[in-house]
């Protein structure tokens, strides 16, 4: 048996600390969160104020394989920056157990605005609580949280960084706080579309792209709403007709597994359309390989069920071929090269 006292002291799972105060820890510098001019205000975040040191620490952790049980996988294994922090696979198997996951890894974009639940069904309320999911899940990082703290404590640089960022010893709680701060800093707002919206240099949209934008506003932005291109709400967008399979604690039933309200059967969270050209394949199980497939779905293949969203006609949107093309051309203007190459976000 290892030194027990060390574990207890290092973990301080039980030890209380007062975090009522939104002030940042002494010695750390507050981070100026810049809200893009065309964006709404982000969520108020009093519990875990962002600091330069907290974000930098979160970035190190996000890419660190020490966070996994076999020391081979990091968050970035399934959330790669060049794919706007998605993994390019329908259902990944990069986890420690090597088993195929049941859900597609979503892109991590503009999470500082994601205030209505995380995961495809909203099963987690915030980035702090969420991180415990992948950290401990056997099919993901399968980490023992005691060993995690031990392993991080063995790195003097981490000990110093946790002290500066959180003024405390390394705990699993401060690990998830740092990860959350880094993820909140992942703002994508420099696409050609954004430059167009803000009248910035390079912000030109072609006539076809403008037609596509018009169509997206009419047909898609009821759900993929506003400048974030998501309403952060849950809808049944008609990709399935039958949600009776309640296997795996209801994983195929969408939001229902969280609320147990029949109205939520088959509802999944609206993903953002930002960087959509980078984040194929699409939907909660990655069933569509291309944007063409997605448009064919909305146009002709809508499946009817009691919870199908009223914004989608039962027979589909019946888009003309040139309309589909225009929409896809517009969606590509949402690709943000600065986001995926930002040195502040990349592997340290």
């Amino acid at each position, binding site marked *: 048996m290892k030194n027990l006292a060390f574990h207890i002291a290092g973990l301080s799972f039980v030890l209380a600390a007062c975090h009522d105060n939104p002030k940042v820890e002494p010695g750390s510098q507050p981070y100026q969160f810049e809200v893009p001019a065309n964006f709404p205000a982000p969520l108020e975040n009093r519990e875990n104020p962002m600091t330069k040191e907290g974000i930098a620490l979160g970035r190190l952790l996000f890419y660190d394989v020490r966070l996994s049980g076999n020391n081979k996988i990091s968050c970035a294994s399934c959330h790669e920056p060049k794919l706007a922090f998605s993994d390019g696979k329908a259902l990944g198997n990069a986890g420690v157990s090597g088993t195929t996951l049941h859900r597609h890894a979503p892109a991590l974009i503009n999470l500082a605005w994601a205030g209505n639940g995380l995961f495809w069904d909203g099963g987690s309320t915030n980035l702090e609580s969420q991180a415990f999911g992948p950290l401990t899940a056997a099919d993901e990082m399968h980490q023992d949280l005691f060993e995690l703290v031990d392993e991080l404590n063995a790195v003097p640089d981490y000990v110093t960084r946790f002290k500066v960022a959180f003024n405390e010893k390394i705990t*699993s709680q401060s690990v998830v706080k740092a990860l959350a701060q880094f993820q909140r800093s992942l703002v994508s707002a420099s696409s050609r579309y954004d430059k167009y919206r803000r009248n910035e240099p390079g912000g030109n949209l072609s006539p076809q792209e403008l037609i596509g934008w018009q169509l997206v506003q009419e047909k898609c932005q009821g759900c993929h709403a506003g400048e974030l291109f998501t309403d952060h709400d849950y809808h049944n967008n008609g990709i399935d007709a039958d949600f009776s399979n309640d296997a795996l604690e209801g994983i195929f039933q969408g939001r229902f597994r969280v609320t147990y309200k029949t109205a939520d059967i088959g509802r999944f969270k609206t993903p953002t359309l930002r960087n959509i050209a980078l984040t194929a394949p699409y939907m909660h199980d990655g069933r569509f390989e291309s944007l063409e497939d997605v448009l064919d779905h909305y146009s002709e293949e809508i499946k009817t069920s009691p919870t199908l969203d009223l914004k989608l006609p039962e027979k589909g949107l019946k888009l003309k071929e040139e309309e589909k093309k225009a929409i896809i051309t517009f969606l590509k203007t949402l690709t943000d090269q600065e986001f995926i190459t930002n040195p502040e976000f990349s592997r340290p």
Partner: protein
Amino acid sequence: MKRIFIFALAAFIFSSCDSNDDASDVAPVTNSKTSITFDARVGSADFALNKDFTIGSRTYNFSKLRYWVSNVTLVDAKGAEYLVPNSYYLMEEVGDLNLSGTIADKLTYPARKRETIEVEDIPAGEYKSIKFSIGVDARHNDNLSLADGELTIANGMSNIAWMWHTSYIFTSVGGTVKEGTTGGDFTAETGLNANYKTVSLDFTTPVNFATTKGVVLNLDVTRIVDGIDLIKTPKVNAAQATIMSALANNYGTKALSFSAISK
């Protein structure tokens, strides 16, 4: 390697915080301390693990009784409230719990009986009632990184299962229930913000904590299971929303009562 938990740290919990100023609107004169006991009962009998109890027509044998008590507040004769800072306590009676595979590969939570909490720095005065909640308030329930009081994800009273309600389990009672030849194991749990219940109990006479040792409250398990058919529904959790809310209501409205002042 096997890891075991130690509770000695609980003693430090109050030392790091001094949020009394805003938590209290009673002027402190000389502060006193007291103990508050949540005495688990099965009707008139003392609650015990691994022992048969008859409730109605059924025989129960319990293996655990665990619940979070939070935001303990003492109310004085004028109605002013003293909120005990950082008051998040896990009350429980439980045998060795195997928590392997939750947050650690191998983890044993040792058998424990905990019915009493110690409260310090109570502003002088005459108190007429006590308020507290069963469960964890939304702010803390929604954010597992806020480690106030005894809150932790390391004791099996939270749910961090992949992609499912990352939040605390508010209450958990388990064991076996039998009626004649039917019945078997049961686990009845509550959770979710809507099921956070606040209980307010009046003392029979005003209490001055400078001259009393403590307050005893009763938690009657017969009332926890009242109206809940644990043979028909042996697993109560978020998937049985209606039954779970009935169970939470039992904790909130009838299971707890004021018992006595200990001098």
